[in-house]
């Protein structure tokens, strides 16, 4: 086989990495390179340097070290039995690519993952080596996200955490039966064990830092995971409960959902059709409701039908329509947690309402200034000069608040 040059490798190894949804570069500790050594900074909020036509943000150089793999997971383009071209970067090539992209302001840093070659430990060593080189040889202060290998030695995983801002291990599928069917060589219990170990390590080093300021920082942006939606039979309800459990047990920063998408040279076990992308979006919305809006998992699920969230309206609106007896909410009197239940009121709008109403009795005009869409909010609130007496009872309320059918995907021609 002819030698591949770096660009050809990049083509293969970025293509192989794109099924990981996460590209976040936020939430880590603040750093800069004002001391004139090295390069890079992180300032809390991540930056998306470009957007691909799939609507996803490009914040990190997201690549695999190699797409060769000894595993044979059906949903994965890199599985052993797939016919994709294989390539492997050297640590040096990844370091060079990362730095030259970073200096041109294309990226915030590196998201490095890998197929498993030889053994888990060997693979993990290679990943850690890239991170070490970036941090120690080049004083790189940008963002590093390392995918960790579930079976790798604890010591290697610990090193990964010392160099990386974020570490992640994918649970891959929301159900154990799905994992068994589609990733027969992966062991759900071991994945969770690795997440528990990681949580332990993060907690330990955090404690150490409380006592000794000189203790090293360990994965300051925490750990995350991803599951594939639509490759197995799991319902939204199952996925939401599973995500909640993961958040609580392993104190994850994020659970990412990746709508299963057809891959080249797919395994015969997979569904042919992709699930609607909207499903992934609705799951993210429900995630938001639980993390920032005080919804419990069972409340979110109660807005679903047969365990599936509606695709045509968002889960918050679905909940409001189903439990209409909670509305209208009086914006001049209602407590924060009730205001957060109003479809169309975000956390910022609620904060603005709470702040303003100390100074005036809010009228509809005022509410319009505090929210993005008055029309969406109106049927669910009352204020000084507005009460939706007829609206909330109207049986066709759904039609009134439902967004017009939008074209979600756009193909020319």
């Amino acid at each position, binding site marked *: 086989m002819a030698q591949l040059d770096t660009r050809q490798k990049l083509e293969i190894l970025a293509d192989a990495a794109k099924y990981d949804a996460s590209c976040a570069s936020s939430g880590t500790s603040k750093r800069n390179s004002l001391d004139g050594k090295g390069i890079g900074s992180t300032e809390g909020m991540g930056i998306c340097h470009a957007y691909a036509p799939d609507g996803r943000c490009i914040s990190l150089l997201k690549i695999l070290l190699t797409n060769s793999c000894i595993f044979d997971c059906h949903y994965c383009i890199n599985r052993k039995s797939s016919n994709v071209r294989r390539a492997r970067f050297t640590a040096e090539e990844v370091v060079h690519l990362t730095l030259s992209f970073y200096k041109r302001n294309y990226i915030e840093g590196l998201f490095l993952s890998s197929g498993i070659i030889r053994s888990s430990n060997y693979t993990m060593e290679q990943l850690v080596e890239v991170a070490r080189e970036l941090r120690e040889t080049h004083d790189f202060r940008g963002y590093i996200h390392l995918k960790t290998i579930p079976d790798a030695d604890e010591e290697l995983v610990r090193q990964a955490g010392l160099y990386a801002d974020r570490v992640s291990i994918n649970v891959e599928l929301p159900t154990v039966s799905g994992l068994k069917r589609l990733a027969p060589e992966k062991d759900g219990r071991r994945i969770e064990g690795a997440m528990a170990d990681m949580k332990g390590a993060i907690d330990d080093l955090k404690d150490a830092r409380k006592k000794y300021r000189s203790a090293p920082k360990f994965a300051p942006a925490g750990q995350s995971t991803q599951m594939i939606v639509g490759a197995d039979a799991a319902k939204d309800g199952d996925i939401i409960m599973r995500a909640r*459990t993961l958040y609580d047990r392993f104190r994850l920063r994020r659970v990412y959902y990746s709508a299963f998408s057809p891959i080249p040279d797919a395994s015969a076990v997979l569904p042919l059709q992709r699930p609607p992308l909207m499903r992934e979006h609705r799951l993210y919305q429900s995630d938001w409701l639980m993390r920032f809006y005080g919804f419990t998992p069972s409340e979110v699920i109660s807005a679903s039908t047969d365990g599936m969230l509606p695709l045509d309206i968002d889960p918050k609106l679905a909940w409001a329509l189903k439990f209409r007896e909670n509305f209208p909410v009086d914006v001049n009197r209602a407590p924060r947690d009730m205001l957060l239940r109003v479809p169309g009121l975000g956390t910022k709008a609620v904060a603005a*309402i709470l702040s303003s109403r100390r100074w005036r009795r809010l009228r509809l005009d005022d509410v319009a200034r505090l929210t993005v869409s008055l029309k969406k909010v109106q049927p669910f609130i009352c204020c000084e000069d507005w009460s939706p007496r007829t609206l909330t009872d109207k049986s066709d309320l759904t039609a009134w608040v439902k967004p017009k059918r939008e074209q979600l995907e756009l193909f020319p021609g």
Partner: protein
Amino acid sequence: MRAVSLARPDDAAGWRSAARALAQAGVPASDVGWTVAGEGGDLFAEEALPAPTANSRLTVPKPFLGLVDAVICHSDPERFALLYAMLLKLQDNRRALEDRADPLLKRLEVMRKAVGRDIHKMRAFVRFREVEGHDGSERFAAWFEPDHHIVRANAPFFQRRFAAMTWSILTPELCAHWDGAGLSFSEGAVKADAPGGDPVEETWKTYYASIFNPARVKVKAMTAEMPRKYWKNMPETALVPGLIAGARERELAMVERSRQALPAEPRPREAADMAMTKIGSWEQLAEEAQRRHGEEQGNAGTQLVFGEGRRDADLMFVGEQPGDQEDRAGRPFVGPAGQLFDQALGRAGIDRAETYVTNAVKRFKFEQRGKRRIHSKPGAQEIEAYRWWIEAERGLVAPDLTVALGATAARALLGKTVTISKTRGTALELPGGGRGLVTVHPSYLLRIPDKGKADEEMHRFVEDLETARKLAA
């Protein structure tokens, strides 16, 4: 009319000192005209600016200073006057910034947001190109066209990030330069002054094209965050039309290539299907249990808790489901309710070792709350899903009497919901054959707060157990 001429479009310090003097002199907003030096203006100064009075202090809340620093960068010529009007408002009411529904404040907030977004997009979309340095060092330059006067405010960000490089960012209004030691600014430039390309851009475009997933085109999501106005200065965006045009074809080709006969998803198990299986041995029961329930999800890390005791017992007890401790131990009735149950059995003269004890549902169902796993009552679905198991156990043990502890067990054995208080303590015919008896679940006794009432209920429970012993004898 008073006229104020500021040194630069983003001259926050100049605005502040002028505004302070005007406000102290009580000049109303309508009497002040604001201009930027060199930008012209049709205002003629009729009166000189009042001299700032040193001793009377004018104070504003701190957040207002942040608002000024941001809004001053906006391109709207009215920004100075609007900020001044807000300053006067704050003199009447120091907490006016809390009144977020105020139209003036709202307008300023919208401006602040626009400036913030412009700053953020500049940090995101500036594309450096390498140029030959004088001494062979790495030198970079970029061309960018911001909407607002943000270059000066934003330059320190690039300094913090790229301190070890030397770089220039050229824009139509103002250029920023970092030489490794200090930031400097020069007059605006034109695009031709910036370098025309960089060899690394081809590699970057390769990455952009490869990371794009053709199976999920969402152009709107892309343009919402990366509006077309920025595209002309970003090398990778030249690829966008081609990527979109080819996407559907690529996806369909992928699907077509893998179109083969597929094994179907496992069928959802039906209750009818469950009841059918005839279980002839304990080994078969264990196998069937693994096959049906071995891979259940929803409560990660739990195990199946099998029934235990004499396999030819006369008396069989059915509880609800394993709890936290039962799940850890892998045995039924070992937690607090189990201990109470043992006590009650003792008082009723029953030796637990002589009985068979199991649960209606064999897996711990819980909600995770922090570190604790909170018991969650099994639903009708779960009870139905496990009914085959109870029936199989009853078939294998063939007890004289099966005692349902609590409503869940009663539902599992009777196939319908019954009221405990109406059915407890008397023998019933079970639908699957054999006799049954319903009583409360021992955990009910644990939940009674009143000591007297709890003793009374314990007594009734023991009575029911005695009845069971007699019926089974």
